[in-house]
């Protein structure tokens, strides 16, 4: 049962929403990669980010949503 719940959670994370996968804000303009939205502001942040930045780990984690989308296609 627990596995099922985890799968459902994973599935809902992989399902593209109107929120930016990085900042979570809804209704922002941006680009969609496999349906996952990255708003303009966050895309700019990603382009300028460095591996030393505090936010870097979060970007790495959130990028995984794009790959979950690819696998759920």
């Amino acid at each position, binding site marked *: 049962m627990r596995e099922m719940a985890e799968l459902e959670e994973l599935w809902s994370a992989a399902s593209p929403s109107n929120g930016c996968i990085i900042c979570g804000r809804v209704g922002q303009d941006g680009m*969609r990669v496999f349906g996952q939205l*990255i708003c303009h502001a966050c895309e700019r942040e990603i*382009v300028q980010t460095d591996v*030393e930045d505090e936010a870097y780990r979060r970007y790495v984690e959130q*990028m*995984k949503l794009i790959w979950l989308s690819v*696998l759920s296609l």
Partner: protein
Amino acid sequence: MGGSEALPPPLTKEEEQYLLERLPSGDPSVRSMLIERNLRLVVYIARKFENTGVNIEDLVSIGTIGLIKAVNTFDPSKKIKLATYASRCIENEILMYLRRNNKLRAEVSLDEPLNVDWDGNELLLSDVLGTDSDTIYRNLEDEVDRELLYDALDKLSERERTIMELRFGLGTGQEMTQKDVADLLGISQSYISRLEKRILKRLQREFNKMM
């Protein structure tokens, strides 16, 4: 993760040209398409780093960040292919991450317990690190080493000694590269390299005799 079967095929030459012409317009759907259709590149490059201890999910995510950077900074007017530029950016992103990771792993705390005795007392790294009295001994040892080195150098020919002095900054504290020494003495760098190896071997022999 890591399988690229689900990924869309790479762009044809014509498709890529069409999109690259529109890239400067700032249309996000152009960037999306360029990213999606180059994700295979990310998987391909990420797999090369699988033996680094970082899991493939992270490598692929880091590579995706590199690809996003590549598509955003690519200049279509430069005579370079997007795939070439993107590969460099993806690889660079992963390498930077690995370098940072290795740096963090190399850091140790001074309060790191090295050992615990029967009474539960911890032996800390700071307990065994050099103390002030230690540094005096170290200076003395340096002095003895220096004397031994100069004795050994005396056994070399003048030319050999000059090369060693210039290369390792003996007396001046300013080391020179093999190329600089070669230029200064008007001989080739490979000759300096060969001489250096020979001289170091000789020095080693002289040292062994003295110890």
